[in-house]
């Protein structure tokens, strides 16, 4: 078994916790893990990514083009930017919520995110678009987006871990008062 998972988004979106949960769930099952993430200047509102690899015989935490089993995209344009990492039959989870870069605002760009989603629909067979605005509203926390996307990713079956594995890892990492909210978020996409 070998899983290559790719997270992408914009600095500050909370991709790291989602990646850490998969890592600790895998470790509990005795699966070797490697990962890498953007740290430094790019974190400040720039494009960020993180790789997560599970399985035996890994040499490095980085991914080659066309190697990701799944892309978990926190932002539509960033997901399109990362598509070259996806395996031909790989799956994509994407949040429909766009984040407008300052440069685009200044130039009066007409970026809405919807054009990216349309493009993904054409390119990716195994695509799950999550309306994270609706999801976070219904869960009642703006910070639940990462768990919503993570839950959706696990349910595709592209990662060899169960939603219960993730919940167990989550319970160990988050404060008790947030457990119910996070469980709700992980179960949001059925």
């Amino acid at each position, binding site marked *: 078994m070998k899983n290559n998972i790719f997270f992408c988004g*914009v*600095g*500050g979106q909370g991709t790291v916790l989602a990646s850490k949960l998969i*890592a*600790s769930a*895998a*470790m509990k099952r005795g699966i*070797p*893990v*490697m*990962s*890498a*993430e953007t*740290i*430094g*200047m*790019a*974190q*400040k*509102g*720039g*494009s960020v990514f993180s790789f997560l690899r599970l399985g035996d015989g*890994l*040499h*490095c*935490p*980085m*991914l*080659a*083009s*066309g*190697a990701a089993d799944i892309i978990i995209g926190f932002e539509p*344009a*960033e997901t*399109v*930017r990362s598509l*070259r990492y996806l395996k031909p039959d790989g799956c994509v989870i994407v949040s429909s919520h766009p984040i*407008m*870069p*300052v*440069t*685009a*605002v*200044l130039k*009066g*760009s007409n*970026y809405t995110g919807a*054009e*990216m989603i349309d*493009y993904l629909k054409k390119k990716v067979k195994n695509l799950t678009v999550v309306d994270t605005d609706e999801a976070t509203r219904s869960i009642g926390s*703006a910070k639940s987006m990462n768990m919503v996307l993570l839950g959706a990713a696990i349910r595709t079956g592209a990662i060899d871990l169960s939603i219960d594995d993730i919940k167990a890892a989550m319970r160990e990492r988050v404060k008790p008062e947030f457990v119910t909210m996070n469980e709700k978020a992980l179960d949001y996409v059925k």
Partner: protein
Amino acid sequence: MKWEVGSARRWYTMRKTFLMGNEAIAMGAIAAGVNLVAGYPGTPSTEVLETVAKHNDGSIYVEWSTNEKSGMEVAAGAAYTGARSMVTMKQVGLNVASDPLMSLEYIGVKGGMVVMVADDPGPISSQTEQDTRHYAAFSKLPCFDPSSVEEAYWMIQDAFALSERYGTPVFFRPTTRVCHGYASIEIKEKSEYYVNKPEGFKKDTMRWVIFPRTAFLNHQKIEKRNEQLGDAFSDYRRNIITLGNGETTSRRGIATHGISYTYTQEALEALRSFVNDDERAAMPDVMKVSTPFPFPERLAVDFLRGKDEVLCIEELDPVIERELTYVCGKYGLHVKIRGKLTHDVVNAGENTIDSVKKSIVDFMGWQDAATVRDATMNGDTCETPELPVRPPVLCAGCPHRASFYAVKVAMRGKKTIFCGDIGCYTLGNAMPLDMVDTCLCMGAGLGIAQGVGHIEPDTTCFAFVGDSTFFASAMTGVVNAVYNEADMVLVVLDNSTTAMTGHQPHPGTGHRMMELAENYKKSAEDVANRVSIEKVLEGMGVAAVEVVNPLDHKKAVEVVKRMAAMRGVKAIIMRSPCVMIVKHDKPLAVDSQKCVACKKCINSIGCPAVIMKGGKAFIDASSCTGCALCAKVCPFGAIG
């Protein structure tokens, strides 16, 4: 070899854990019995010192030093006593610490001393792509170059043992992808840690005082030792040759190092399934160089013998490539050495598995694999919608934005130069602020402003510097300005932390690493001596010093105007804490009835929380910190 630590690892009691490379280096240093760790923050090195502090049982002295030079000297002093010490920094920090380093080479140490310098191919978060392996050769100090998180854990322990055995400081040089990679690895239980009890400093002028005569004598010893070390490194189990087909020597080879070694492994594994049987039988041999200096020459000769061509896959500079070319000349070997110098590998930027795959396919002339490579790598990207560019920006609510904007408004229409510096505030260069005309290295803005001012007396010269940078490398520049009667305005952007690298304390914060790690959070009260920036400036003879909160926009503009009109060296301390370390105010909102969509808020300050939505300005409540700068900018009072 006696100093190899990990070779008997199966005898240790271990536990499995998930660590970042920098954390692994720190845990390795702790396992090696490190007694003192000093350093200055800098991406990608910062987490090493922080992790030591976090796992400190109280027996290790840990400090963020004022700059890398101080850190190097503190670590050297500790090693003079027989303590095991480590100093941590990023590659450009080594430039600052190079003065003590170059002399320390001749003096040596008693306890093991590791100089942990993280290089940054790309560069991803740096102003240069310099290669610390050159510094190792320049300073004649041994250098370790780890290729993975796990290897870093063991290799740092080897580095301490080797340093102590040979009485010399040793370089440990990871690169960004090793520093910031994570892996589940096994580490030693605490009971297995080496315990080092420093003997204490023993007076010995001949040993500890550098004189021309001592330098001459020690130079000879160092050259001899390095020859021996190069030979010993040929047997180091982390300098290895792997045969391509597992049995016989191939006519072609790849020489590599660090993270590129793991890219080579991944690439060869992936390509193996695309090559034909003949090609598979002739897969290239691989030599991994874990000690670039002194170079493992004997091992290299073994590797080169019988080969036609060798491809060097390196990041930063062609260090291995030049060494192999030299070895070929020295031993009369007819092997063609290829790499960056022959334009077979790109000479700038970081490698990737993809780039390494391409280099190998071209080098080996694998036709089938090339077809597959082109198919998977190029894909069809022609119809991709236009992607918004996303450069890093100052955070929503960042007080630096307000500082830059105040200076911009105050100096509108005047002939000015804004000399910037290294830190978050370098991002003040972006549109629409456009307030950084120069940026060179830490502390340089002061000198640049003075130089411009001496040639162009009609220009009002500003130098911007952060609070941590002020202490690290700006103070001599201030004295220089006062002494030489420059005419300039220094703006200290004091956000009470070292923000860019993840909020480390510095001399102006009233906090230190030791106390912070014990509490795991910042207490409001001072627990360390707080060095006052205004008192330092006054003491240095700066003509006028004023402190102002940049979010008090009107007052800030007034102060800038007043100071700019005075002669001599003036300083404004723009003081407001980093938004990442304080509680935010209530987010603001736009009254869409009052908003006329003039976009002045957007075009003046470029805050990422303010966007256009439905033809009106709109504030994203989840990122707004309530700094209210936009409200002060709005001519219609539509934001509140």
